[in-house]
């Protein structure tokens, strides 16, 4: 595994974060509900943070990427359907959409790791998957906070 290969891989991961940032920023502008706008704006900012983290690894491939693997995966994202993006989304739908996107990213990296013959590349993909699992976990906690309301 050479440095160019690592840079190409991180460029791919960075592009995903940029796409996510743009998606959430655009969604924030179109939402009717102020709380949902705030949730999407926060998510857009978070994706920029993830992008900056990945940039550091891209710039210095000698840095060893060791994301802390979350102790558990509660699989809440896996238990809900992906909500459709619409202007009248509720806060819980916005979080459900975001955690599903993190789940998809995690599954993408896990899939890439599984198909990798180079152990160095596989380790990077697994680290990226762990990073997405960490994001998914955080969003799942937020979702559980509001996704099962006792409203009648």
């Amino acid at each position, binding site marked *: 595994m050479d440095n160019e290969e690592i840079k190409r891989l991180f460029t791919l991961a960075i592009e995903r974060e940029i796409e996510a940032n743009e998606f959430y920023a655009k969604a924030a502008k179109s939402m009717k509900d102020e709380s949902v706008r705030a949730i999407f704006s926060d998510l857009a900012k978070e994706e920029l943070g993830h992008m900056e983290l990945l940039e550091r690894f891209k710039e210095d491939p000698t840095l060893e990427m060791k994301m802390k693997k979350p102790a558990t995966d509660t699989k809440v994202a896996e238990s809900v359907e992906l909500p459709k993006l619409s202007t009248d989304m509720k806060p*819980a739908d916005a979080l459900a959409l975001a955690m599903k996107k993190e789940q998809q990213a995690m599954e993408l990296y896990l899939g890439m790791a599984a198909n990798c013959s180079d152990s160095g590349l596989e380790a990077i993909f697994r680290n990226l998957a762990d990073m997405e699992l960490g994001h998914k976990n955080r969003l799942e906690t937020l979702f559980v906070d509001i996704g*099962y309301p006792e409203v*009648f």
Partner: protein
Amino acid sequence: MKSDVILITGSNTTWCHPVFGGMIKKAVKQNGVKLIVVDPRETDLAKIADIHIRQKGGSDVAWLMGVQKIIIDNGWHKKEYIDTRCEGWDEYLKSLQSYTPEMVSKVSGISKEDLYAIAKLYATGGKAAIYYAMGITQHSHGVDNVKAISNLALITGNLGVEGGGVNPLRGQNNVQGACDMGALPNVFSAYQPVTDAAIREKYAKSWGIDVATMDAEVGMPVTLMVDQAGDKIKALYIMGENPMMNDPDLHHAEHMLEKLDFIVVQDIFLTETAEKADVVLPATSFAEKLGTYSNTERRVQLGRPAIDPLPGVRQDAEIIADLATRLGAVNFPSTPQALFEEMRMVTPSYRGMTYERIEKCGLRWPCPTEDHPGTPVLHTAKFTRGLALLAPLVYRPSEEMPCDEYPLLLQTGRLLEHYHGGNMSRNSFTLDTLKPECELDIHPEDAEKLGIKSGDMVNIETRRGKVKVKARVTASIDKGALFMPFHFSEAPANMLTNNALDPIAKIPEYKVCAARVKRAD
């Protein structure tokens, strides 16, 4: 307990929720947790409280909002929490201006100094929890009372915090579970609306029925069913409930039930309501059956049978399954575990629970997957609607206030020894021996004016009825107030209560009605 301060109002916790009451007592006496009790009666917890204040019946919105005004006027509110987690501040603040200490003192009978003491301890004493029960909800403005409590917790940053929170103590051990399972007129389990076509589709698929046969209309709250008896409602199937003891204004309830064409009662004893039924289905008690209970902290626990069913009674699940099968249901689950498995598949907040997982100490919902540990504290980061709404509130007096004709205020409630309409506890030799008869609590000054001594038989009368009962003269009740338990069919308190309803929750005003008392001849 992680609280520094506990505020209890509208709850005689050691009598009505003895286990939890014991935990609070321990927290106060052994761990130094500060306790505020606001209650017209000197309850057990009031005796050990740092502050016990007696409010006039029905004045809760006034004193709660008055305390909030003092907190804000003194700068004890959590500005950052309000800015980041709440909305509606301007309207709320505007509505708060009318709750001056003078106005609040006049309405509630609480002095300005006492209001200040409550405000200071609650707002500045650390993590503060509020506990309340039916003394807050059973009013014609019960929803406003709860909103006022929510406001108080919000402005002090006490919602979504372990050791803080607004903690309603549910009226019975499985009220939470009954509501979670959709025993409400407008929702399926986990509060999924019956009006949502996609949700109906999900249940139809699970039950193997044609979705077109499902009713898409919202049903009727139980309090309105009685009023519609003989009109829209022709028959009632009543399980584990005794409206002939527990409904407000029993004369009216009895009159309405007599209009029904058909009544079925499924219960463990021949209740006053069962005596009026066309069909009585004897069912097993808690001690004879397997099943889950969801308690007030959303914890789902497994109850196991201690004894075999007595001869002639059947499990509730079996009775319902048989009935459903005779009505055409196919493969209707007939065991508690089979029902639980079916239920959790359509109930997102319970989906991660299995009998194996809840066997030891239960799980608190939301528990959406089998990998999820359950959720002890909700709203730590967000509220369901995004930001919490600070509710502007206008004080509304109770439907009935004291007057020349009925100068006292009657409050009804429970005793330690008995439970609800007495169906279970009065059939217990031990409990009924401990407390065999009803007593009306009256303050010594009121009793003296009326020439009443402890042990005298008196007639208590309201606009709806008259009941003969033994008087207990005690300073544990506030001057001008009366307390009467509702467990005794020989002296049924609900002959007296008012069936005025809260406009939103449709809950009756059991806690306040105007009354007069005279010595019985």
